[in-house]
């Protein structure tokens, strides 16, 4: 809306002209630094400095109980992690959890967005209701899902019984095969509204002309989606992939409250392993090394995202 207003002739400015004007308006070249300084200092103190300390901690053996007797061990924590088979299992669980979250949360979000995009009676209410899971506190979500999945009294097993399936009566969160699916179901329930809200906004950008032209040509829904919808929302989907990946790598509260990573490590992601190492095993150095591995994975994902989006932009520029 405002972009359109700025593009009107009497207001139009080339980027250069606008920046010159900004500079002239400005006067003091230090102003932007003064404006940014509080936040930069704040983030360095509460994010940068702790991160640096965590990095240094990862090269030491440090106990939570006696942190003052910390000593330097070089890469030993990392070497030990790499040598432990259960750590590779943690990586595997994290990868599986993240991949399924990304695919299902975005696919369901897109499905919901497409359902709620075109007008119908009550659309406003429907759009509001569908975002409820996203507004609910994760710990409360974990608590109510643990209750619905309760082996004996949970309503979920009650429904399975009604369907007369051979499964049922399962203690979902205590069963190593079922705990991860249960955690995934809960996580996806909570986060798919985010992707649907963001994708609903992106769908506003779909060109009605292209859509109608395709419709007049007799294209079916799938072709219309390919021609008119997908090209418009693709950058948003890419951004969602990045964010859901990073958030899944970070997610702690929901998993911790539901299973604490159990049973026998079936839901133990990197962050759960990190927390367990630090506060149950009380080995801060090892915990820090786990954290650094997780952060490296997040960094790699981010770099790949920027590389891929830039390549896509270049490819579009050429064609």
């Amino acid at each position: 809306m405002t972009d359109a207003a700025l593009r009107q002739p009497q207001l139009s400015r080339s980027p250069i002209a606008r920046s010159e004007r900004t500079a002239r308006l400005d006067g003091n070249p230090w102003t932007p630094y003064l404006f940014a300084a509080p936040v930069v200092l704040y983030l360095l103190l509460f994010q940068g400095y702790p991160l640096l300390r965590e990095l240094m901690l990862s090269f030491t053996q440090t106990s939570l109980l006696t942190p003052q007797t910390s000593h330097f061990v070089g890469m030993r924590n990392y070497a030990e992690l790499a040598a432990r088979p259960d750590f590779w299992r943690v990586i595997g669980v994290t990868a599986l959890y993240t991949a399924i979250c990304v695919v299902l949360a975005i696919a369901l979000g897109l499905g919901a967005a497409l359902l709620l995009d075109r007008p119908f009676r009550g659309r406003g209410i429907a759009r509001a209701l569908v975002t409820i899971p996203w507004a609910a506190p994760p710990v409360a979500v974990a608590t109510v899902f643990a209750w619905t999945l309760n082996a004996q009294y949970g309503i979920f097993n009650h429904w399975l019984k009604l369907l007369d399936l051979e499964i049922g009566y399962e203690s979902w969160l205590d069963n190593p095969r079922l705990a991860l699916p249960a955690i995934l179901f809960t996580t996806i329930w909570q986060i798919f509204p985010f992707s649907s809200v963001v994708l609903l906004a992106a769908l506003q950008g779909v060109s009605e002309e292209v859509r109608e032209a395709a419709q007049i040509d007799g294209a079916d829904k799938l072709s219309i989606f390919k021609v008119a919808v997908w090209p418009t929302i693709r950058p948003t989907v890419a951004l969602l992939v990045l964010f859901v990946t990073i958030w899944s790598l970070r997610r702690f509260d929901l998993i911790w409250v539901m299973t604490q990573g159990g049973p026998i490590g079936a839901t133990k992601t990197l962050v759960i392993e990190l927390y367990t190492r630090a506060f149950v095993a009380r080995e801060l150095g090892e915990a820090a090394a786990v954290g650094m591995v997780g952060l490296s994975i997040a960094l790699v994902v981010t770099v790949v995202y920027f590389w891929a989006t830039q390549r896509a932009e270049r490819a579009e520029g050429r064609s």
Partner: protein
Amino acid sequence: MRSPASHAIRMALILILLSVSVFPIYWMVVTSLTSSANLFADTPQLVPDPAQAFNYADTFSHTGVLIWLRNSAIVAIGTMVLSILLAILPAYALSRFRFRGKGALGFLLFATQMLPEAMLVVPLYAIFANLALLDTLGGLILANTAFTVPVITWILKGAIDGVPMEIEEAARVDGCSRIGIVLQVVVPVVAPTLAAASVIAFFHGWNEYVFAQTLVSSQYLRTASVGLASFVGELSTPIHTVMAIGVMYTLPAVLFYLMVQRYVVAGMTAGSVKG
């Protein structure tokens, strides 16, 4: 495309979608109102009969829920106020100035998204111990703000990008200082986004668990997320009490969200889609 059959299928899918979205919250409310005897009946009651509002009175008197909710409110409001105060000027700088280090600032804001809270909790514990911030709600506000302020800055930057320069120039001609322009001209124009950003920061503080669990140890400083989580796996507390606490913790947030949903969605999509 507009055939009655496809319309019916679409409406059915929408109904399923909404049921799935709303049911767990509904179930929390139902369980909180169910009597102990009926909780363990063979057939779960979809409508509690009789509805036991007494469960709530019982919960108030037997748990610290009111204090926990108060603590959560303090943390959430504190996080909200501090995030907004810190974010306005850098958002303006990112939107309106060209300066060396702008890219680095953008990266710093983005990089915070990658850090798991659980990872920073150990070093933050040590830092807070030195600053006498351990076991204080103020410490929680400071820790939470480190995670909200980057997002809020980015959302506000998106909004300020849309404010025409001409409005600012008029104020400049009238002799207004730069900070005066930001506070008196830009902030009122982006007020709806500012409201959305406030709500997002509020929710972060209201929902946060890791820091509240580890940086605070006093019972009377527990937030609702920690208080609620403390019942999981504990057999002595009846499930309807746990769910009653869950309802008191969830419903204010959800109702508040539904009231301001329009603004939140606008702010969020401005920040994340343009980002």
